[in-house]
């Protein structure tokens, strides 16, 4: 067990014992090798379930808004809980973004900042094994001892690092109420490389990639459901008045859904890659989600979720905003 993990458990135990939080959302070991999953700790006796490492990739902020929903038909006085969240940089940015959009009360959320060294991409682990399957895995300080059907293998975080983490701008929480000290990865110097490579392709190549990837979509909406920013009670994709997206499995409707969902993230996406990981069809979503954060930063100097203050980029304007796209007859 790492020092950070020990400190994390101790800290959360204290917070619960002192009544400073009613519950903490963190990560626990998953039921499959190299997986972890969200856990909701309400009892100090359960803190030993908490883990911290490079498999803790879920964006936990997505679970928070639901915890603050008033119970229906309740005559009792509603007292919102105080919720702690184990937060990497991306989780914390999502929380701050949700606070900015009035979806979470900042004074009722305790951001417990943890040092993020980067998350593994399980697909990269699987691909490096030449067909052998993973039976079990043990993490220790940046390396993974993996037991496979073809014997034991050691894989490093560097080999399996998720693409999103390689370009991460905020490995640690920009704002945290409690900080667990430790070694985080440095903020990436070069970002949006995947987007730039895609921009360099011809329009036909880009369209081919977009259509071939999106045609794999089965409309399970996992991408939407794991995203902390997708909290609309009725998503545009489910609206019937008007019916934006048809019921049938039709390619241009699939594209319209993804264009719509991704565009709704403009100025809000914190690049946590939760949608990319959640997709059961392994759609190359990242190259499509990262273009808008890049443009918003380049055009308007705005980065989502670094502060709970201020106005979201698409709710405001500047007199000097770029006009190069305007057609002049």
């Amino acid at each position, binding site marked *: 067990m790492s020092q950070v993990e020990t400190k994390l458990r101790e800290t959360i135990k204290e917070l619960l014992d002192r009544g400073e939080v009613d519950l903490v959302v963190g990560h626990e070991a*998953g*039921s*499959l*090798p190299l*997986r*972890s*999953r*969200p*856990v*909701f700790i309400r009892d100090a006796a359960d803190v030993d379930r908490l883990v911290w490492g490079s498999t803790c990739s*879920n964006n936990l902020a*997505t*679970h928070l808004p*639901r915890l603050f929903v008033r119970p*229906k038909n309740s005559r009792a006085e509603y007292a919102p809980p105080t919720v702690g969240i184990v937060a990497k940089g991306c989780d914390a940015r999502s929380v701050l973004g949700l606070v900015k959009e009035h979806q979470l009360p900042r004074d009722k959320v305790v951001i417990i900042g943890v040092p993020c060294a980067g998350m593994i991409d399980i*697909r990269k682990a699987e691909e490096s094994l030449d*067909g052998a*399957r*993973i*039976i079990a895995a043990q993490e220790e300080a940046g390396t993974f001892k993996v037991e496979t*059907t073809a014997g034991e293998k050691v894989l490093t975080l560097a080999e399996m690092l998720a693409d999103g983490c390689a370009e991460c701008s905020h490995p640690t929480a920009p704002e945290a109420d409690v900080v667990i000290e430790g070694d985080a990865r440095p903020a990436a110097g070069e970002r949006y490389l995947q987007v730039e490579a895609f921009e360099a392709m011809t329009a036909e190549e880009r369209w081919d990639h977009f259509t071939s990837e999106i045609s794999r979509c*089965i*409309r*399970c*909406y*996992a991408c*939407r*459901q*794991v995203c902390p920013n997708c909290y609309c009670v*009725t998503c545009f994709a*489910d609206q019937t008045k008007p*019916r934006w997206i*048809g*019921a*049938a*499995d*039709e390619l241009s409707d699939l594209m319209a859904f993804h264009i719509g969902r991704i565009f709704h993230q403009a100025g809000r996406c914190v690049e946590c890659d*939760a949608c990319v*990981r*959640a997709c*059961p*069809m*392994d759609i190359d979503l990242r190259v499509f989600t990262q273009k808008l954060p890049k443009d918003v930063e380049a055009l308007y100097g705005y980065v989502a979720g670094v502060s709970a203050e201020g106005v979201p980029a698409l709710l405001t304007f500047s007199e000097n905003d770029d006009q190069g796209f305007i057609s002049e007859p």
Partner: protein
Amino acid sequence: MKRGKIDKADLGKLLVAVSETAQCAGPVADRVGVKLEMLSADSALELAYDNFALSPKLWFFPRSEVIASGTGDALETTLLPEGETVLFGLRPCDAAALELLDKIFLDEAYLDPYYKNRRQNTTVVALACNEPDAACFCTSVGGGPGAGAGADVIAFDLGDALLFEALTDKGKALLTQHEKLLNAPTGDDDAAKTKVIADAGAKLKPVKTDGLADKLSGLFDAPVWEVIGERCVGCGTCTYLCPTCHCFGIYDEKAGEQVQRIRTQDACMFPQFTLEASGHNPRDTQGVRARQRVMHKFSYTVDNVGETFCVGCGRCVVHCPVNIDIREILEEVAA
């Protein structure tokens, strides 16, 4: 012909011969993993795979299909696709799932002509498993790596060769049609087959499922559901990937001058699944929706058609974004 063997190197020839009288689909390498796809002359056939990400139920119960169309006042049932299809490469769990779906879609009282048409015109050739995946648990729900339920023919991978065994008349007819390309299996082949299946079975982690249906009926109000629901994000991944989930929605949509009635797959995990026009939702928490899915598959279908609707394929376990593991839920219930 009841049984036949073919060298893997000649498998391509066999599938070409099959394609002459029927559309033939088989396992083809995809950008990630392997998928079941209509074969063409240059398909890259792939036999080393766990399972397809998408279950083959799609070939009988597509994600969306037009079931009727017309103009004005009258809607006509659409013509059903014709022609024979041979599906090669279904794992025994997915083939067993077809037998379960038959109980729903081929029930005489509620016969589904679209499903029936596809099922009748399709010959299923299963491919037994030599190596289970980390999340597989078919033996805990009445299946096995070499089980033949739902298939017309089952193939065993013996390393250099495939051993085919016909399980139904349709299967026998298929093998007989191509018997010139098949050789008689030997006693060694049978021994190899038995060993391969036994080895695979031994690797499976059993899940306790005794008395599950009965125990579940007493757990309707148990707190376990809200615990699961707290983590569940409400996507349709588990349902859409599941080989036995079969709920569907029907929508009428305009297409040019016509109205089309479209049937699509649906998922009880979506909040809108039970949303009523008044705005009331009888299943208004994720915990209640999770309970519905587990109850439907392990309790209600047992009451209704005498079967558990889970074949232990493990897709829901592998792909759930929050790692909700049905095996853990079952063990907690069966305890």
